[in-house]
């Protein structure tokens, strides 16, 4: 799946990812390949991304995530 993490100041991440774990308002959840479409708000926490090159993590201050057609967009800020 394709993942983009965007903050108002810059693109934090853009590219292929195996899975991403986000701090949803109702609790942590993980998005894998072919996840159903979802829009969820996020609270302050860490976004963990699994890529072919290893795991990356980003601190966010809340935001929103949208999953659609195997494309995940995290708006952080």
């Amino acid at each position, binding site marked *: 799946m394709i993942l*983009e993490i*965007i*903050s*108002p*100041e*810059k*693109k934090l991440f853009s590219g292929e990812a195996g899975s991403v774990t986000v701090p*949803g*308002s*109702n609790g942590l959840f993980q998005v894998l390949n072919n996840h*159903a*479409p*979802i*829009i*969820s*708000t996020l609270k302050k926490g860490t976004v963990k991304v699994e890529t072919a090159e290893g795991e990356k993590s980003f601190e966010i*201050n*809340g*935001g*929103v995530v*949208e999953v*659609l057609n195997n494309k995940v*967009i995290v*708006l952080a*800020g």
Partner: protein
Amino acid sequence: MASLKEVRLRIASVNSTQQITKAMKMVSAAKLRRAQDAIVQMRPFASKLREILENLSSSVDASESGGFAVVRPAEKILIVAITSNRGLAGAFNSNIIRYVNRAIAAEYKQQHQNGNVKVLCIGKKASDFFNKKPGVFLRHHNEIFNNLTFDNTAAIAQQIMNEYAAGNYDRVVLVYNRFKNAAVQYVTSEAFLPITPPVSTDKKKGAANDYIFEPGKAEIVQDLIPRSLKTQLYKALLDSNASEHGARMTAMSKATDNAGELLRDLRLQYNKARQAAITNEILEIVGGAEALKG
């Protein structure tokens, strides 16, 4: 005609002024590029946020958006005037000040007579001006331009939003220079609060995707609207910042050209004066020689 020495001094002074304006132009050009990059960087964020909001707002009642969409009679007005901290940028700052003054005198005349128009200044130029104008100055946030980040902007936006929610103001308007290109900036007045929820022009698109909403549509809208307001203020500040550097670059470019023209005229004048002095000297020598002969 001015003496040789006077002209020489003026040439030196104009020359050094030209060097300063040229340097300022170059600095502004570099800063402009960085400011433009910042605008480009935040665009995907803003458009995505808007898209999600459009998707949602068709199915969510405006009253659920945390009180920011409630339209009250326009009795108390807050104008957010965005200028710069520094001058020498052509008409950049005076345009904003003139626009705000006109709005107070015309559009919001009634409210102003009741003392209900306040100006929140971002940028030293506006705060210097409105501080002297009795009864309108609220406060300033000049320090924001030292470190123009989203977080700093969000804090200001939050403060304004709290004041709106508390009923201190019924309308909040942003006045700033919208960036078109380095030479052209438009003075823009934009409604900040109350918000008009973005309505999707493409109705089918929103309905077609069967989203799961967590925790719920209304909660998401309540979370996103403050974010979109912060983004709007951030965008206005970035635009104004880019406009400032564009305006300064253009102004300094013109100043450099003008100094060049002035220098040409002065050099001509200098050479004429020098030639006149030489001619004079020769005449004296010849005259002296003639007198000796006789």
